[in-house]
């Protein structure tokens, strides 16, 4: 176990995983209003207001322009870069009627069919995807 006192080494390791944004405090701070916006879609009346006019609904939240644009574009990888967390973003794609598998496949750069086929064949192997520094 890494020394629990060495917060810098701990946090640096979390950034060493290919294609992965670990939801650290830095991301949680950056994405706070984005995630709270997404959370608001748990209420039926908010979902209705959001569907009626997405841009106006977003303007009620203290989000960056980049975050708003990425939400409107449903660019989930970009939203992860901007501090979004998948369980919060799930409220957005659920409101769109997408399943986790459908939404997640859009982040992998694969078609839903190819992604589903990969999962049915046992999923994506971790080989070569464990570390950015030393591919293994």
């Amino acid at each position: 176990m890494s020394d629990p006192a060495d917060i810098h080494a701990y946090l640096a390791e979390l950034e060493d995983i290919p294609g992965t944004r670990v939801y650290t405090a830095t991301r949680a701070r950056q994405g706070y209003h984005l995630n709270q916006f997404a959370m608001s879609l748990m209420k039926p009346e908010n979902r209705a207001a959001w569907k009626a006019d997405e841009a106006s609904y977003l303007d009620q939240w203290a989000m960056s322009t980049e975050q708003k644009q990425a939400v409107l574009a449903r660019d989930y990888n970009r939203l992860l870069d901007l501090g979004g967390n998948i369980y919060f973003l799930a409220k957005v794609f659920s409101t769109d009627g997408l399943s986790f598998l459908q939404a997640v496949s859009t982040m992998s750069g694969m078609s839903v069919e190819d992604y589903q086929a990969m999962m049915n064949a046992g999923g994506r192997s971790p080989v070569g995807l464990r570390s950015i520094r030393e591919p293994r």
Partner: protein
Amino acid sequence: MARITAGVGSSHVPLLGVAVDQGKTQDAYFAPIFGGYEWTRRWEAEQKPDVILLVYNDHASAFDANIIPTFAIGTGERFKPADEGWGPRPVPDVIGHPDLAWHIAQSLILGEFDMTIINEMDVDHGLTVPLSMMFGTPAQWPARVIPLAINVVTYPVPSGNRCWLLGEAIGRAVASFPEDLNVQIWGTGGMSHQLQGSRAGLINAEWDNRFMDSLIGDSDAARRIPHIEYLRETGSEGIEMVMWLIMRGALGARTRLLHRHYHVPCSNTAIGHLVLQPD
């Protein structure tokens, strides 16, 4: 005296709840998953536990980004299924056990685990899917349930060792409750899965099975697995497996395996299931 008689580990994938709620558990896709829980459903019907201590994580349902408790215990009388964006699951309300929950909360705090106490909250698929897997579709859940919600979303999440120690403290707390109760502890979540980015869909069956192996018998090696290993080997959401260590810690020095099941895939996720007894 109350006693912990068994531990159950199980994934809690939301799609399993959909399969139950839409009557699809015997479809070709789902049958191999649910088939692995049939033994447990019969066993639970015989065991008739009075209370389930159900370790799970909230998925942005009861807790938003505002308040992030590391360890929370539900002390309320009743918990409703959460509306996770598509309406609440059509499952019974979860009936709590406030006397035992408050006893555990007080014992844990005196034992230096500073719990967050929750009187009112809705419970999401993390809690209701395992109930469906183990109990099917009854009109009322056959046991009372004490929710133990763990932060495994915002880093740092609790260490494996801290989870194991919490389990041990829960075991002591239950053993000091005067009423004669048959208590089970369930650790849920996992197994390998990643729900984000270009590495989405990662599955590591070999690692998952080694992890399950390590919870059987007298090894305590799993408590020392660092977060980075879960992340590298089992995907960003595989970290949920630290919650199984709370279950394992509560079972004491040694466990005996009663039942085991593993299947890939369910949605984006590997399904794992263990039934253990203190030995």
